[in-house]
């Protein structure tokens, strides 16, 4: 089975994120970059499917030079090879443009180039959860998204899709696009051997023109939605904090009553 896993480099969750005043994009220089956490689950799921069914896992990453670190991490976890889409014109791409570049990179693999595309169900910076569905739409493939369990049997893929009150069982015929939620598995840490091996694994660097795209199709110029303005949210007013001296619950219920919650 041929599996492609899309990974994104994002600012560390623990760092303070800011927008760049010059073009309203995420100020990536201001934060520590890491692999999007949800994508670690996607890589792990791909590796487990490969271990069960044999095959190959390819990492697909769109991002600047610095995203090489994220690509290397995925390779050191055990993926076989990688495609890194790098182009300055991609800066500021919205979800529509991102899905376009990733779809073109997938199509470039040719007919039968992959059986499954696996992604994390959201990135921790943009948090839109739309790119998997957009890729499925662009490629005319079934989407099996928000999976908390994935199984493949022959040419059938089945998932349990996490819903607000339980799950839906969904099935499709390969090839298909799958997105995973956290807790689907426990991502492995790269081993020392894995880290050493990753250095020798092939990374195919791809530019926009390799994908048959023009700078105007992507980036800030190709965005179909744009930021008009942004500002810091008004800080919350400092509240009252009391120490429980046996009357904490009384004070709390008084507060709730004053706000008409009880």
């Amino acid at each position: 089975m041929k599996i492609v896993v899309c990974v994104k480099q994002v600012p560390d969750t623990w760092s303070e994120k800011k927008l760049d005043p010059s073009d309203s994009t995420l100020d990536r220089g201001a934060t520590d970059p890491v692999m999007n956490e949800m994508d670690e689950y996607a890589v792990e799921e791909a590796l487990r499917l490969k271990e069960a069914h044999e095959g190959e896992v390819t990492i697909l990453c769109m991002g600047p030079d610095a995203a090489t670190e994220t690509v290397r991490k995925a390779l050191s976890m055990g993926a076989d090879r990688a495609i890194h889409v790098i182009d300055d014109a991609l800066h500021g791409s919205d979800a529509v443009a991102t899905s376009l570049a990733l779809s073109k990179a997938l199509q470039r693999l040719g007919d039968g180039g992959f059986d499954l595309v696996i992604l994390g169900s959201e990135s921790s910076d943009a948090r839109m959860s739309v790119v998997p569905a957009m890729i499925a739409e662009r490629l005319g493939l079934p989407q099996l998204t928000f999976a908390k369990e994935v199984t493949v049997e022959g040419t059938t893929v089945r998932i349990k899709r996490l819903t607000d009150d339980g799950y839906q069982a969904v099935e499709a015929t390969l090839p298909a696009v799958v997105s995973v939620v956290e807790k689907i598995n426990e991502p492995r840490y790269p081993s020392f051997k894995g880290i050493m091996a990753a250095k020798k694994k092939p990374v195919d660097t791809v530019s926009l023109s390799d994908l048959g795209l023009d700078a105007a199709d992507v980036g800030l110029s190709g965005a179909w939605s744009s930021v008009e303005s942004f500002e810091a949210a008004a800080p919350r007013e400092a509240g009252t904090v009391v120490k429980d001296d046996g009357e904490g619950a009384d004070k709390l219920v008084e507060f709730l009553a004053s706000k008409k919650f009880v």
Partner: protein
Amino acid sequence: MAEVLVLVEHSDGEVKKVTTELLTLAARLGEPAAVFVGSGFDTAKESLAAHGAAKVYVADDGELTSYLVAPVAELLAQLVSSASPVAVLLSSSADGKEIAARLAIKTGSGVITDATDVRDGPVAEQQVFGGSTVVTSKVGTGTPIITVRPNSVAPETNAGAATREDVTVALSEVAKGAMITDRVVEERGERPDLSEAAIVVSGGRGVGSGENFSVIEALADALGAAVGASRAATDAGWYPHQHQVGQTGKTVSPQLYVAAGISGAIQHRAGMQTSKTIVAINKDPEAPIFELVDFGVVGDLHQVVPALTEKVRTRKG
């Protein structure tokens, strides 16, 4: 006046609150036209009419709900083409966002997700980075497609005719690619949906065990609230994953958020920081959650929460 399409979220015709919020926002932009997929329109009609739906496109075809997301996107694309709406509004639920995503590609339109307000333009307001930054955005290409977070606006009553107009769509083979073979509802009791509840009571590491979550549930039931959990609690297996509030779980914005035994790490704050009123109970006076609260109690939740539950019950009689 041009139409604004609103995709109705419902369960057998019981309209979700977020839909009434979307209709309220739609009335600011044009004439609200609801899109109702599945059966139960007769049940839904009253609520849709009371919140200003002039027209309701009804697609009562089992095929549309037998497959994941893609069929509804095809239906909406057809309506965008025939009705030329000024915007399409959907809920920021998993389905809502993914339908919006596919619709954007199909119609060559920009998409904005997780709006917390929509104004004439249309422009959408979003609160990003855990509520620390407010962004105003607009769609420059195609038909603006906007998903809105539940509890962003108070639903207003606004009489509409809710005139039924049946629509059919001939689904492509691609839309039938991912078949829903089963729907499993895990027991939630009578509690409201976490995403759109007016009050949420959440438990974290301080709760200590799965059994102890009964303390959190009891307070939630006394307040008529939904139950949430921090990542530490769901990672430990104390409470089901779909209740997780935070960066990698749900983002909620209730009128009242009660955090019990939750320290308030960034990961959690990203999912609840825009709640209108925040209350916390935590043993550690240095816990970052206290920076956010309107009212906080430094103390043992195992003492404070049951006592609070008792007092809430007494007050409510």
